[in-house]
């Protein structure tokens, strides 16, 4: 090939670069390794992590069983190694799966339009706030303090640079629910969006309708955020919301130390042109057969550039495919049964400990610890159990409490160990 180009060496290919930019030494990296050595190195790292522990952490990342079919399908090269489906004729597999994903997200959330995915739940929530600002022409964002603390941090970062003021709305100290009176007082004429999570960070199920009424009375939009997607198998869909922004990690997406996950934004048909991210639509090919393609692309950065609804390009397609397969495997009845098992497990554990809040909860709740949560967790670690998340770091007033999560994977014997550690 060099000869075809009339060159003597590979170096000649970059000889035209300005001499001052060329790196005159080898990169200071260890020499290339064989597959065998690489596998060994990562196996050693994996072993430095917790493994074979029972785990009661939730807080935005949940341990649910991953049906075998999920990886069988998601590891197929035709899905794993394909590009964004801009070329519809040779991407119908991905496009059809996304169309099914969008449909199932609508069925679950009670919305009419869902996008093909966002990076994660936190950025979906932040982009939903920006979307609400575009729709309403307003700037203010009111965020429930019971929204995941890290999601709130992301919203604050995005809002700061978009020059949008953010205020936080309190929770009722007894129930752990949103304080509706406080919310009412914070929503004003310049409020674009109210963001409420349900089940909230404390696991408490919110009154979405009441929040919607407050937001709508002042012309603001209600954004309902979810982090525990399995709850949608049992809870009434947030159909009073204007926008739903969620995290689908619970749908067979491995915890993987925080990512990759898949966020999603769903909304009403009337807002379809303001939704960020990719959308797949149904159409016909020239021979009249049903086909799918990316649509309404004029919303997106590659066409509208500085006026786009968002800068998002790469999303979480393969991870959303995992969620699609998960929803297919469980289906209508399975998802409900799964959610009911989660409810049963969490309620079993909750009955044995001192709960901080009285509000109805799904599979997470806040427990009051008899001693420092870190000390409780230390006791549990010695028994092979990772306990709950100490809340003082995020809520100083809840220092001494921990957030516990039980799923279908939590076993009774481990829950009994947790209850025991929290009793003494």
């Amino acid at each position, binding site marked *: 090939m060099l000869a075809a180009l009339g060159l003597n060496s590979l170096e000649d290919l970059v000889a035209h670069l300005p001499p001052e930019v060329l790196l005159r030494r080898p990169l200071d990296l260890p020499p290339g390794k064989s597959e065998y050595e690489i596998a060994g190195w990562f196996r050693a790292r994996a072993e430095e992590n917790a493994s074979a522990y029972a785990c009661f952490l939730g807080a935005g990342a949940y341990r649910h069983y991953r049906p075998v079919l999920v990886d069988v399908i998601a590891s197929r090269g035709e899905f794993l190694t394909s590009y964004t489906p801009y070329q519809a004729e040779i991407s119908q597999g991905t496009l059809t799966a996304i169309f099914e994903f969008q449909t199932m997200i609508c069925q679950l959330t009670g919305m009419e339009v869902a996008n093909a995915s966002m990076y994660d739940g936190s950025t979906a929530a932040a982009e939903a706030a920006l979307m609400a600002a575009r729709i309403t022409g307003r700037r203010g964002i009111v965020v429930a303090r019971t929204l995941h603390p890290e999601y709130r941090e992301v919203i604050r970062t995005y809002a700061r640079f978009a020059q949008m003021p953010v205020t936080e709305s309190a929770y009722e100290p007894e129930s752990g629910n949103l304080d509706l009176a406080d919310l009412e007082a914070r929503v004003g004429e310049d409020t674009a969006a109210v963001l409420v999570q349900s089940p909230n960070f404390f696991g408490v199920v919110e009154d979405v309708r009441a929040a919607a009424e407050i937001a709508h009375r002042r012309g603001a939009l209600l954004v309902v955020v979810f982090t525990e997607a399995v709850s949608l198998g049992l809870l009434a869909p947030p159909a009073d919301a204007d926008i739903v922004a969620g995290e689908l990690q619970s749908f067979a997406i491995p915890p993987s130390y925080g990512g990759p996950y898949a966020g999603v934004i769903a909304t009403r048909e009337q807002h379809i*042109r303001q939704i960020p991210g990719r959308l797949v639509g149904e159409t016909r090919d020239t021979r009249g057969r049903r086909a799918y393609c990316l649509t309404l*692309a*004029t919303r997106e950065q590659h*066409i509208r550039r500085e*006026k786009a609804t968002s800068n998002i390009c790469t999303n979480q397609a393969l991870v959303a495919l995992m969620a699609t397969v998960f929803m297919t495997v469980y289906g209508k009845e399975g998802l409900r049964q799964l959610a009911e098992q989660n409810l049963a497990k969490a309620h079993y554990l909750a009955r044995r400990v001192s709960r901080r809040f009285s509000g109805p909860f799904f599979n997470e709740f806040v427990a009051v610890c008899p001693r420092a949560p870190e000390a409780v967790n230390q006791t549990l670690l010695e028994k092979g159990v990772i306990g709950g998340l100490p809340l003082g770091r995020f809520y100083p007033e809840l220092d001494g409490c921990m957030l516990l999560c039980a799923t279908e994977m939590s076993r009774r014997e481990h829950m009994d160990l947790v209850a025991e550690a929290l009793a003494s």
Partner: protein
Amino acid sequence: MSTYPENYLYTKEHEWILIENDTGTVGITYHAQKELGDIVFVDLPKPGTVVERGKPLGSVESVKAVSDIYAPVSGEVIAVNEALATAPEKLNQDPHGTAWLVKLRLRDPAEASQLLSASDYRAYLGVEG
């Protein structure tokens, strides 16, 4: 080729306006819709909006492009063509007729003197194209 009605006035941005008394009906030209290709969406202002000559009053979209529509004259929007919301393809079919975009109440009829006549516009297209 299409004919450009003699009683319309035109802009170099490829809008047309038909002025009747103090009212102007605005659309995009045959040339504009042809350049855009299949039009899939039309974004128009609400009645009551005040527009300034030369400033965007809305946009039209094809599958892979967005084009602003500029107000040929200043004025207040008194009507918009609602039919285009559900049938944007009309802009490809009848750009000089049923697929008008908005009607304006003119603020300053003298502004019309800055616009192109049909023959000027045809000449302009000839030069441009």
